[in-house]
């Protein structure tokens, strides 16, 4: 049983920001329901899916409805960069509607017993999404978005995250340029992301070296692991096996009351004043430590 529990814990790559790490039970038992449980913060690494499905079934407990977790700050706490008015609509109406609508869709179905991540992945259905996907994806994305911001945010990352950003983008400024370009060119509705895009071998190899020296891939090129991606509408890079570290909502409802059509101004403010780099760093650390655990499990 201990080995089984270790597998199930290890199988979830956690992207929970620092503020939520204390609610450890919410991750280990796969629980994603209940206020403040940080719904949608467990990310599943694609390569581990087979063992994970078995493990999660073993520890999953019956559930009823998804809840809408509040952002980890008051609705006016991001003023003047993102207004209370915007939060009241964006979280209080849009995000809430996705939760209410998904609950209606899953009532009386087996998805009632799934975690949010399971609904997202199952409804993505390997690229031919089912009607649950738009709601499930948007619930996940919005929770991740609130947790990606904080009052008096912005500034710059540090430590391992900064090292990897410098390695994979050249500089923090270049990362910001690419991130904003992704947000600007996501035509229509969607999201811009910073993600980890590893191959499992490269990840393990880097962990084994224990250093920050670049890992080379089989062609001798430095194995880049961080990347900026953009997704349309409700899509989340979780479905491709990426590990999200940061997201920015570029649906117009995210910025229209405060910035109208000035999406570039919104993106500048997001990066300079709102990004919660502590949360991003915690997500990176969680992803690194999870892969390490998996490595141990496989070799035992």
């Amino acid at each position, binding site marked *: 049983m201990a080995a089984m529990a270790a597998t199930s814990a290890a199988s979830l790559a956690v992207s929970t920001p620092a503020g939520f790490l204390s609610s450890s039970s919410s991750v280990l038992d796969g629980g994603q329901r209940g206020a403040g449980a940080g719904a949608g913060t467990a990310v599943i690494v694609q390569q581990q899916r087979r063992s994970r499905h078995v493990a999660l079934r073993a520890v999953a407990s019956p559930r009823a409805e998804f809840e809408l977790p509040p952002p980890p700050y008051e609705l006016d706490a991001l003023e003047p960069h993102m207004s209370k008015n915007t939060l009241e609509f964006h979280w209080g109406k849009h995000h809430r509607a996705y939760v209410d609508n998904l609950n209606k869709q899953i009532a009386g179905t087996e998805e009632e017993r799934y975690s949010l991540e399971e609904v997202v992945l199952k409804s993505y259905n390997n690229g*031919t*999404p089912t009607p649950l996907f738009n709601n499930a994806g948007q619930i996940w994305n919005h929770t991740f978005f609130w947790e990606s911001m904080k009052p008096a945010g912005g500034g710059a990352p540090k430590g391992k995250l900064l090292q990897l950003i410098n390695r994979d983008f050249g500089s923090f400024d270049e990362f910001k340029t690419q991130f904003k370009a992704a947000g600007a060119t996501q035509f*229509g509705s969607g999201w811009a992301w910073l993600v980890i895009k590893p191959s499992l071998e490269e990840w393990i190899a880097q962990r084994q070296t224990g250093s920050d020296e670049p890992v080379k891939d089989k062609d001798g090129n430095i194995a880049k692991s961080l990347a900026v991606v953009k997704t349309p509408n409700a899509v989340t890079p979780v479905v491709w096996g990426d590990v999200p570290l940061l997201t920015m909502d570029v649906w117009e409802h995210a910025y229209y009351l405060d910035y109208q059509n000035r999406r570039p101004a919104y993106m500048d403010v997001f990066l300079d004043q709102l990004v919660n780099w502590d949360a991003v760093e915690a997500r990176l650390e969680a992803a690194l430590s999870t892969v390490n655990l998996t490595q141990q499990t496989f070799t035992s």
Partner: protein
Amino acid sequence: MGGPFKLPPLLYDMGALEPYIDAMTMKVHHGGHHATYVSKLNDAIKGKGELESMKLVDLSQTAIKMGPAVRNNCGGHYNHTLFWTYMAPKGSSITKPTGNLQAAIDKNFGSFDQFQTAFNNACAGVFGSGWVWLGVAEDGRLSIETTANQDNPLMDGVVLSQNTATGDRVPGTNGRKIIPFMGQDVWEHAYYLKYQNRKTEYFAAWWNVVNWNKICEYYDQYASKKLYIPVA
């Protein structure tokens, strides 16, 4: 701005569609969003020989092949140029279609009310950004269709009337290629300043400013004759 395309002026004041569409929305929608589509379209076709001399209707048909810069901005310019003309201050137009269009709507939808309901349902059924259209299909019947982002039914290869994730048919639509002669913008920028998330309220209010005089004219002179509505 350079290039052949220009932002057309509105035929009414910014505040003329109040209280259904607020003046600030008109200002940003026309002077911000539409103006940007025009300038970016001109940038996209600059120095591209044949593209620079094509009429907007013809450019629209090849737009998807020409890549995202042309597709998105050509679509945005065509869609919005006609959008302003689908509307007029309340009281300055008949409030329902008459003549041939009235007959066609009754024939295809049962009644004007049933058409309105179907159209509103399609508007509510679009996920993400896009447009909802009333148009004439190849067999001459009327059909409601939707497109994503700034696509429109003129574009060869366009995806019609599908939910952006599931690919399911948007309610009330048929997935038929049409000649559009009336359209509704369901991008959030079309209504967010006044209606925020209450988009169905916007869709209901919009009928107060629909310019049926103009739309009947579009149907009679172009769409029913299988012609796309030309714009300058």
